[in-house]
């Protein structure tokens, strides 16, 4: 199954929130939807979930317009919240039923998930008697109990302790292995790198960059070298403002152009005592900052 979000535009009043968002994800893969606060991620997710319609654009499943009566979507919103004063099992069954399950199946599925997340002992307790982390696990059940084909997880790891984060990782991996489409929205780049093959960075209502993380990194302008040396001062004096030391003691040298790479490497090896020298490869965090730092400015739409 392929989910395709195609050229979505959305205005709220005079404010253009989405200006032609397009991305696609396939069954059995996790897709990272990244962007700064207010970039348009939640609006995109809400349009994808049919909370409100787009002004223009399409949501397609295998090339056909999505039929919400057939496609089930599970959602873990960033703003967590359920009914604090109600019994956990009652509200989980309610949400599973709202998402299309019969009461019998809803109860069965909820019990399975509570068991899977080691939360069965809290089944008949009120939500507000649970710790924040456990409440989050309960919230996760609302996203998964109705066996959705598409799972949208907005900041799923925030507030979880390492053990619970591990459990969630296992659950997410299981769901990906079952052939679900998992959409991740998070600012914790390590988790995105761990799970997602493909990402899209939304900036200012537009896709700033999208594609597989590997390719994005590979295609990143290779105009910087990272050098490890015992004598950094000599190199700093030689390269001047183009050379900067980072916190690990390594030096980053900005090249005049990517074509200068081999020539500069040769020059460094010949003239300085270096331990290692490599072309700078950015982390996802670096890419995110690079493409979103001008949140208010237009960035050229680039697709890889």
């Amino acid at each position: 199954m392929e989910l395709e979000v195609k050229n979505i535009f959305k205005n709220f009043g005079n404010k253009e929130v989405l200006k032609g968002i397009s991305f696609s994800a396939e069954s059995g893969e996790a897709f990272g939807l990244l962007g700064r606060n207010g970039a348009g991620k939640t609006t995109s997710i809400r349009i994808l979930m049919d909370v409100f319609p787009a002004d223009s654009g399409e949501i397609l499943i295998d090339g056909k317009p999505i039929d919400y009566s057939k496609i089930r979507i599970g959602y873990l919103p960033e703003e967590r919240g359920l009914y604090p004063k109600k019994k956990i099992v009652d509200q989980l069954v309610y949400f599973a039923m709202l998402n299309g399950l019969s009461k019998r199946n809803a109860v069965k599925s909820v019990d399975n998930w509570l068991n899977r997340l080691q939360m069965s002992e809290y089944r008949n307790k009120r939500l507000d008697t649970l710790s924040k982390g456990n409440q989050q696990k309960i919230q996760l059940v609302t996203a998964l109990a109705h066996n959705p084909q598409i799972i949208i997880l907005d900041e799923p790891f925030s507030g979880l302790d390492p053990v619970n984060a591990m459990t969630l990782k296992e659950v997410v991996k299981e769901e990906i292995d079952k052939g679900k489409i998992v959409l991740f929205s998070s600012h914790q780049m390590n988790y995105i790198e761990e799970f997602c093959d493909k990402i899209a960075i939304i900036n200012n209502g537009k896709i700033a960059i999208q594609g597989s993380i590997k390719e994005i990194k590979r295609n990143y302008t290779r105009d910087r070298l990272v050098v490890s040396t015992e004598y950094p001062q000599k190199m700093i004096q030689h390269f001047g403002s183009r050379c900067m030391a980072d916190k690990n003691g390594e030096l980053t040298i900005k090249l005049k152009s990517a074509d200068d790479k081999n020539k500069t490497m040769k020059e460094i090896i010949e003239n300085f005592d270096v331990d290692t020298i490599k072309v700078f490869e950015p982390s996802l965090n670096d890419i995110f900052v690079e493409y979103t730092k001008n949140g208010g400015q237009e960035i050229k739409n680039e697709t890889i």
Partner: protein
Amino acid sequence: MKQFKTILSFELLNYLKNKVFVGVTVFLVVVIAAIMCFPSFADNIFSEESDKNESLPVMIIINETNNESSIFEEPFSYAFTNYNVKLYDDSYDTFEDEIAVGNAECAFVIKSLTDYDYYVNNYTLYDTNTEIADQVLRSIYQTNSMIESGISIEDASNIINVQINHTAHSLGKDQTQNFFYTYVMIFALYMVIVLYGQLVATNVATEKSSRAMELLITSAKPVNMMFGKVIASCLAGFIQLIAVFGSAFVFYNINKRYWEDNFIIKSIFDIPLNLLLYMLLFFVLGFLIYAFLYSAIGSTASKVEDINTSSMPLTIVFVAAFLVVITSMSSGSVDNPLMIACSYIPFTSPIAMFTRIAMSSVPVYEIVISVAILIVSVFAIGIVSAKIYRLGVLLYGTPPKFSAIFKAIKK
């Protein structure tokens, strides 16, 4: 439809499982049962003692006139059935002490048939003993005067106590009969609509403030959510009304013979069936209009605390309608121009038209027009409220201005 049913049953069960809802309903039923059964208990407990005059407060009559004391005994005992009337001659001069220590409640010192002194420990605002005594003495004086003029005692008594019979024929509605039950029904309508309307608004705002709304709007259609909530609260209100009025009706019938003499209670339970059906109709339509608006208001508030301010204009409209109706009822003229106008305005017609139907003779076409306007308004307000709800549930922060909402729903 399946989603609507799920929401409806979830919301209705929330009411029925709510301890406050169950507690208030049981409390009201118990209070009504206690009130309705009270005369029966009182009759059983106090029947023996009530036979004895000792249990009644003592009224002392001191005869200082030249007349025989016997001419006062019977009329005073007959007129003051709630007192143990004791007659003394003028030598009884410790009566003031008896009153002061509480052995007697009051005393009449009769100086002549047209002059007496009244003694009582505390002269209250509601003490009517002197008025009754005036009548008794006037009657004795008149009888005596007639006897002295040669008229026999019997004739004199007949002349003075002549009985006037009258029958009032009301060609329309009898307001002495229907005032009390109309008042009770209007009050019940008012209370249920305001209380449940506020409850709906609070529920929606609570879902928003607890952020359960984030999940709800992605799991259910806003229209299903709003209609499910409103109709569940309508059913809950109806169940509570049935419980309260039903128990009142059952306990009244069990204790009917004890209430035979109570005109007000008797008239309240003499509600004609057609009026009950009208009440049901206006309850449902009126409730829906207000509950839709309350839910829309609830959706625009981010916190429960905002509800009171946001819903104030709507509550004021309904309170004003209630005041117009109650004032018109008290004045006896329920067909005044203001009431007629209110009978066609959807926000006021549920109680205004109902009152007119109950207390006056309203032409059928007027009822049809009023109900038709109300039904159309329910649908129109339902659609507009659903649009506001759909927008409102996604908005956080300062509640939006009315003009902004209007602009958004026009789109």
